[in-house]
């Protein structure tokens, strides 16, 4: 049973190099209240403000919102990378985050070496590492490339390797950013099968994307983030209806084979 509780989470980034008062005022005026000051009068960007929601087994949550709305920061915070300034994140289950295609891989190391590092991080034994390497090779279709440095891969290959690696270690909670869409159509199909199998196995998926069609297909709940706050929370249809202009929404529904 996996669970993820985000309780009143706030995250702010200090701006260490914006000391000038006049600059501060200018920026403050321009950024419509997203800048604040911390207790020591340092300028901060409030990336997330009082975000709360609870996810349970089988939930597939999508984030939508304009650039800079805090989607990626929220994913990073849920993954435990940024420890929040206020509030708390409670997770039950193994969390894996696919936040950028590189995923902390060392581009100078080969695919197999990167898989080994990832497996060691998961506390795998030597036999399990070999299984993982085979599993990733089979899924990503990279066989002979795994012996080459990752920096020689195409961006699509890096995405495939990252995705295969992250899902092969059976995460119970998978956090994914939109870069997944760099894969080609056949890979997207394969990825969806794998994710569906995972989600059917009673896990949690959190996906951030700009593409309504993807969110409609993959998610059963949608959160609209705006200015670091939750603006809307509901079924994908409800939230997209509010988020998209009516004509686009109708188009997306039509493409997804549903009626408005």
């Amino acid at each position, binding site marked *: *049973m*996996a669970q993820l509780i985000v309780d009143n989470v*706030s995250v702010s*980034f*200090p701006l260490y190099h914006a000391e000038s008062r006049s600059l501060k005022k200018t920026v403050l005026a321009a950024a419509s209240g997203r800048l604040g000051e911390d207790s020591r009068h340092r300028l901060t960007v409030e990336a997330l403000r009082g975000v709360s929601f609870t996810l349970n087994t089988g939930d597939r949550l999508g984030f939508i919102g304009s650039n800079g709305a805090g989607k990626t920061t929220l994913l*990073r915070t849920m*993954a*435990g*990378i*940024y*420890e*929040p*300034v*206020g*509030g*708390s*994140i*409670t*997770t*039950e*289950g*193994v*969390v*894996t*985050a696919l*936040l*950028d295609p*590189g*995923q*902390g*891989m*060392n581009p*100078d*190391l080969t695919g197999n*070496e990167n898989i*080994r*590092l990832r497996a*060691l*991080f*998961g*506390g*795998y034994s030597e036999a*399990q590492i070999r299984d993982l390497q085979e599993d990733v090779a089979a899924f990503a279709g990279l066989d002979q490339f795994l012996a080459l440095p990752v920096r020689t891969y195409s961006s699509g290959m890096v995405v495939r390797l990252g995705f295969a690696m992250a899902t092969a270690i*059976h995460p*119970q909670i998978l956090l994914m950013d939109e870069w997944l869409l760099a894969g080609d159509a056949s890979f997207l199909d394969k990825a969806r099968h794998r994710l569906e199998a995972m989600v059917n196995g009673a896990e949690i998926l959190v996906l951030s994307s700009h593409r309504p069609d993807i969110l409609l297909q993959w998610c059963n709940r949608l959160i609209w983030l705006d200015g670091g706050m939750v603006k809307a929370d509901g079924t994908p249809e409800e939230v997209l209806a509010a988020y998209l202009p009516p004509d686009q929404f109708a188009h997306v529904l039509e493409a997804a084979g549903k009626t408005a």
Partner: protein
Amino acid sequence: MSDIPKRQVIAASHSWSERLRLAWADLADTARLWPLVWTLSLFDIRLRYRGSLLGPLWLTLSTAVMVGAIGVLYARLFHQDVTDYLPFLTISLVLWTFISTMVSEATTCFTQADAMIRSMRMPHGVHAARVVMRNTLVLGHNVVVVAVVFALFGTKPGLDCFTLLPGFLLWLADAMAASLLLGLFGARFRDIPPIVASVMQIAFYVTPIMWNPAMLAHRGLAKAFVELNPFYALLEIVRGPLLGLPINPGAWQLAVLYSLGLFLITGLVFVRARPRLPYWL
């Protein structure tokens, strides 16, 4: 594979007890992940020499070349007997190389690992331990040079040389603490790495590495450099046994004292600043 769901709470904490608990968990997880630390350091070294003919053997070879060249030259400059001076210089240089690269790489241990830190939740201690492990592996390559020089000049350290083991353990603990401390400072203040590099440059000349304190004893200069110099104390507890000298209680006292101070400061800084590290990268 541990698939048992583990409940994990990451809360914004302002209480020291909570921060202490998380900092301790970080270090405990680092210890649990030692195979990862080992493999990371191994790959670091392998990567540095990938495609080179001699590979990591270069580590040994370049140290040998340096020791040979400097040894012969400085033995003349200092009017020392090569057979005494060269073993002394070899040990000193090899040990100092460990200390100084350790310290300078410590300042970038987190900034260099920014891709990893920003892509998954991993104990920060792993990145510090990686630098310690990597430099220990390099030291392992350089010890060969010491062994060869000792064999050439017939220097035979006695059984006393086993007292270097506790000294080296203290070194490892100090190295880990220095990595955490300087790594955090280096991530927050980007001027720290060049400042530390300059300090280490000065320390190299001030500390009895190229010269033996006995050489300056008659000038009354050596006392100040020796008695308060943390690098000298640390160097001495490992170098002394190798040179067949008896245990130096003064150096041990100083080394333990400085180390305790380092652990205390590192503890405070790490507990306080650990949650903020990813924001600085």
